[in-house]
């Protein structure tokens, strides 16, 4: 039976249920499932496709808990389509990533280079493929944006690929249709448009960097001269664009090189953890901070920001300022640098106290310093930053400009308002929405959700059947980037040809293919579209070779955009900004969510459950406010407040955050989805409901008042205070360290190895160990998702997280030190310590956990009886217990996701980090085949491979020349809870800060 045939059956099932299934969750969903199971179509399908139905796993006291089972739920019901197509490789020739550069063998099987895009911008990845199933994403070391690292979004995109909740069938008003039917309808509409030059044709996309798609859109434009192409990217680089226009009179693309920067000033920029080049920046930044060997030079980071971010946590000096005060600060700094004429003092003493030392520090490092304007700061701040960098002649050294990487860098707000105007005028006959989710994430005052309905024919190509699909007649299933061909530019313009790893699971089409339908040659396959475009671009012979190389490397040689040196238009640089008065109200700060971004990842369990940096909040967003404000409002964490902004109202739970500036409430976008799928629907609240075009990122005038009710948050860490007696985090100032390199060792008490009653075990051969450099770690959390993907770690759901049952093998603890209003923030990744004297092993009654000859603290799942004694006796609490059947053994599409080298744990057994023993063994087998030792760096644990700052180093501690041995030998090395004499194989390098001495004065 053909796949499309299956789709139709599936449709029959959905049809049979109609609306009942939509939005049903938890227990309700159960009911729906029963109804579903009752329908004859379903039983028939079960017989045919899927003998075992997912039943018999736990619910709990709390109905929310039902959501935990989303994966299984969908397995039982809706994920049945197209299974047999799953593991079929694409027909076109795709090029495996054969060459293994020095120092990198991420895992076993085949690797293919492609690119994941976020807000249109590419980051190059390598995709691990087991027998044609993509299972794990790694960074592409050849790619300028990732340099082999990988962020949480890309890591989790593989789960999105297999998400059974994806839009699975092409529908017209909820009824299944065939692509043929759609094509007919489309041609009809286009024929009409032809007659009026396409005056009624509108295309709405996100930010586009794909050259191929740009050319398609141009072609469409030529075909329908009166048609319009609109763009809306809710978390796009609107301000950056406008800032460049303000500073240079035209749009330029800006990027940095932190490798050359001794001093970095961040004006509310979270450059270490967000933005298209953050991975690259983080690596460069960390490299300049690493203190090893004799080298004790560190760069210095100043951060002014309202809400603590990973970048803020690395700052040597962090100045909490309201978002609106940043411009003031930038102005003052520019004035101090003589770049602009502004007031030398003002109401906010802090600012002026700061700029002096910073300015002199910058001046001292002309050409080797950097001022970074936050992507969410107003154009003026960007302009000032550009001016300062120019004045400090950093351009060409630490700051670089190119032409925009976007195909069409328009002011997207204007573009969207233009569309709204036409919609109101009834001028839109055919609206094609490619990706995005405008009905959910457009500025609230535009009321897109209803306005879209004014277009006569609405076609939506989307990965999910979401809020926007709801208001469109046609919902076309979009292919995932791992399912199709395409191309996209990175932060510096470098092009990556995206190649598919697997046939489309749900018979979807790529944006390229759909746009193609508007052109003369409607039915071309993505592969031909992309290839033909580049063939046309490629001048000269040897295109085939070039193409193969480009596809193979994941980087198209020489496609990076040429550097430009734009000139500042001094007239536009003003530093006389007025500080926006709060006048009793609050400043609203909107930011994309650290884990589900603008909402597009809402249905991704891995990202939902990934604890957000610093707050460690999962499954929710919150109204983040300072202790002072909470006190003033008489609220505490989890109380509800009512937020009012220009008449728009919203109820939200409070999150009291140390380090948050008084007077500002930070709201993370992306939550409050109403049609995200069973994972994401209904969590958190929706700040888009307060977000207007003229206050995209921040604005004063937000009123907050306490209301009744309280909220249940699910956090993975409740205690953040660092008490000095428990030596958990060791840190020192760099000066202190230069004076006395032993400073860390002196503060850390660790018993001598001789202090023992019984003879030591010898570890001949390999002895695996790990060193974690707290000085580099930004706490971004990419390692946590990497670990989850590599080790088949289950998602447990909000309720279970609340009950302290999250399953992450690797967690990132965050601690606050100093006064609560402006604390120093420390991040500490905690995997299993692989203690040589492991307390867990001693107490296991069945020897389910014991030591390997290489010093690993092995965990034998199928021997474990589940007394949980080991976890009680683990001082680091890194052991995780399957209280229920958390793993998914049923859902067909998710079976494909599992890493075949790792056991999928069942109910009632303990599990924990094993240093990715499957990777160790794979490498050892290789080495033995070639009768040699395993090379240093040949084994990379999943967390290590993905870490943007190379904070995690793994290797053989018996080899004195291995990187890990060298790090452990250094004076910064210490063991967590060393006084217990557990002798951890995982040790930490203390954190150093490099404060500006002038501040003490």
């Amino acid at each position, binding site marked *: 039976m053909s796949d499309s045939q299956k789709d139709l059956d599936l449709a029959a099932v959905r049809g049979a249920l109609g609306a009942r299934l939509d939005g049903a969750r938890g227990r309700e969903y159960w009911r729906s499932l029963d109804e579903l199971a009752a329908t004859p179509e379903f039983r028939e399908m079960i017989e045919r496709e899927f003998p075992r139905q997912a039943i018999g796993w736990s619910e709990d006291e709390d109905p929310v808990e039902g959501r935990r089972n989303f994966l299984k739920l969908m397995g039982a019901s809706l994920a049945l389509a197209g299974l047999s197509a799953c593991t079929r490789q694409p027909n076109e020739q795709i090029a495996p990533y054969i060459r293994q550069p020095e120092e990198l063998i991420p895992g076993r099987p085949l690797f293919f280079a492609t690119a994941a895009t976020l807000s249109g911008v590419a980051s190059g990845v390598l995709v691990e493929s087991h027998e044609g199933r993509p299972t794990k994403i790694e960074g592409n070391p050849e790619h300028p944006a990732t340099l082999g690292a990988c962020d949480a979004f890309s890591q989790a995109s593989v789960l999105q690929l297999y998400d059974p909740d994806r839009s699975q069938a092409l529908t017209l008003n909820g009824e299944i249709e065939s692509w043929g039917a759609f094509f007919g309808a489309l041609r009809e509409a286009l024929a009409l448009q032809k007659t009026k030059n396409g005056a009624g044709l509108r295309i709405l996309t996100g930010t586009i960097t794909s050259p191929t798609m740009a050319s398609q859109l141009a072609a469409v434009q030529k075909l329908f001269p009166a048609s319009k192409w609109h763009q809306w990217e809710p978390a796009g680089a609107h301000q950056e664009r406008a800032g460049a226009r303000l500073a240079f009179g035209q749009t330029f693309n800006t990027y940095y090189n932190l490798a050359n920067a001794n001093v970095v000033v961040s004006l509310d920029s979270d450059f270490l953890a967000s933005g298209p080049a953050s991975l690259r920046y983080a690596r460069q930044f960390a490299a300049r901070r690493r203190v090893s060997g004799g080298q004790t030079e560190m760069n210095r980071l100043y951060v002014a920001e309202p809400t603590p971010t990973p970048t803020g946590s690395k700052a040597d000096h962090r100045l909490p300022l309201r978002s609106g005060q940043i411009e003031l600060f930038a102005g003052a700094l520019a004035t101090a640098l003589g770049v602009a004429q502004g007031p030398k003092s003002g109401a906010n003493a802090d600012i002026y106290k700061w700029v002096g030392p910073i300015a002199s520090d910058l001046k001292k490092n002309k050409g080797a310093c950097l001022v970074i304007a936050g992507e969410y700061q107003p154009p003026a701040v960007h302009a000032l930053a550009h001016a300062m960098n120019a004045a400090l002649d950093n351009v060409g050294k630490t700051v670089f400009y190119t032409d925009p990487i976007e195909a069409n860098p328009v002011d997207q707000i204007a573009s969207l308002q233009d569309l709204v105007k036409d919609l109101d005028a009834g001028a839109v006959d055919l609206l094609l929405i490619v990706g995005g989710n405008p009905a959910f994430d457009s500025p609230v005052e535009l009321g897109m959700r209803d306005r879209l309905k004014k277009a006569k024919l609405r076609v939506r190509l989307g990965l999910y059947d979401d809020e926007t699909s709801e208001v469109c007649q046609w919902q076309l299933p979009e292919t995932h980037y791992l399912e199709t061909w395409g191309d996209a530019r990175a932060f510096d313009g470098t092009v990556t040809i995206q190649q598919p790893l697997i046939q489309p699971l749900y018979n979807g089409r790529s944006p390229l293919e759909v746009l193609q339908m508007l052109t003369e040659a409607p039915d071309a396959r993505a592969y031909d579209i992309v290839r033909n475009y580049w063939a046309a671009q490629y001048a000269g012979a040897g295109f085939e070779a070039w193409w193969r190389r480009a596809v193979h490397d994941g980087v198209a040689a020489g496609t990076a955009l040429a550097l430009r040196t734009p000139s500042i238009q001094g007239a536009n640089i003003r530093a006389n900004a007025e500080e926006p008065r709060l006048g009793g109200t609050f400043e609203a700060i909107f930011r994309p969510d650290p884990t589900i971004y603008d909402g597009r990842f809402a249905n991704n369990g891995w990202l939902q459950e990934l604890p957000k940096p610093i707050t460690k909040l999962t499954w929710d967003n919150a109204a983040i406010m300072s202790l002072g404000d909470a006190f003033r409002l008489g609220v505490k964490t989890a109380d509800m407040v009512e937020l009012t902004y220009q008449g728009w109202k919203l109820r939200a739970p409070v999150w009291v955050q140390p380090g948050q500036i008084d007077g500002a409430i930070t709201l993370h976008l992306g939550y409050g989805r109403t049609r995200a799928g069973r994972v994401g629907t209904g969590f958190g609240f929706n700040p888009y409901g307060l977000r207007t075009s003229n206050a995209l990122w921040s604005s004063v005038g937000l009123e907050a008042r306490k209301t009744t009710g309280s909220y249940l948050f699910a956090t993975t860490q409740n205690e953040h205070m660092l008490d000095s007696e428990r030596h958990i985090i060791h840190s020192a100032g760099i000066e202190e360290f230069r004076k006395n390199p032993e400073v860390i060792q002196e503060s850390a008490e660790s018993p001598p190895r001789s202090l023992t009653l019984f003879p030591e075990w010898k570890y001949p051969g390999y002895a695996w160990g790990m060193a974690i450099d707290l000085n580099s770690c930004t706490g971004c959390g990419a390692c946590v998702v990497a670990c989850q993907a590599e080790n088949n770690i289950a998602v447990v759901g909000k309720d279970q997280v609340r009950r302290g049952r999250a399953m992450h093998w690797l967690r990132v603890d965050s601690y606050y030190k100093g006064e609560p209003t402006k604390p120093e923030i420390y991040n500490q990744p905690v995997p299993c310590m692989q203690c040589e004297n492991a307390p867990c092993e001693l107490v296991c009654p069945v020897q389910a956990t014991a*030591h390997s000859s290489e010093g690993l603290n092995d965990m034998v799942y199928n021997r474990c009886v589940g007394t949980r004694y080991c976890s009680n006796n683990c001082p680091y609490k890194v052991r995780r217990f399957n209280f229920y059947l958390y793993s998914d053994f049923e859902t067909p599409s998710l079976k494909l996701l599992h890493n075949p080298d790792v056991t999928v744990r069942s109910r009632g057994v303990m599990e924990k980090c094993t240093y990715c023993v499957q990777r160790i063994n794979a490498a050892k087998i290789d080495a033995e085949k070639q009768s040699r030792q395993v090379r240093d760096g040949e084994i990379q644990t999943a967390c290590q491979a993905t870490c943007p700052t190379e904070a995690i180093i793994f290797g053989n501690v018996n080899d004195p020349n291995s990187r890990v041995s060298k790090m452990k030998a250094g004076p910064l090395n210490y063991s967590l809870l060393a006084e217990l004499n557990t002798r951890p194989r995982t040790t930490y390098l203390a954190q150093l800060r490099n404060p500006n001495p002038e501040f003490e004065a």
Partner: protein
Amino acid sequence: MIKPIYGVMAEFDSPTALVNAARAAREKGYRKLDAYSPFPIEELTDVLHLHKNKLPLIVLIAGIIGGLTGFFLQYYVTVIYFPINVAGRPLNSWPSYIVITFELTILFAALSTVLGLLALCGLPMPYHPVFNVPRFALASRSRFFLCIESRDPLYDHDETCEFLETLEPREVSEVAH
């Protein structure tokens, strides 16, 4: 030669009477006799010359065997059968073995005590001639019995009955097989 009956039995009211009767019977020269009482009477042990029993020795031996079993079971498993690094402790972590060694000592000893008891008493024994005497039911309530068995060389039915009557019992009755 099988005697037609098992023996003759005299019933008494008090432990004292029983003890005296038993002593008298011994002095008369009867050897194959037994006394039955609703509770243990120390004096009878001397009067009937019931020698020290072997139970303590049995228990001692069993206990020692148990202890050795316990220790060497653990030693064998951790050092020989499945030697593996657990928590960096040495293979022969003898201090950890003490508890189980002790427990097995007690277990073996206790089991041998009970089995020894049954063995030495010849229990279980669902049938015994004395139960044929209707009033013997009171032996487990409030009466005390002395039985002279027909196996006794001095046993002569009439003589023995007469002798028992001289001990002022409540009643003398025959114990049929």
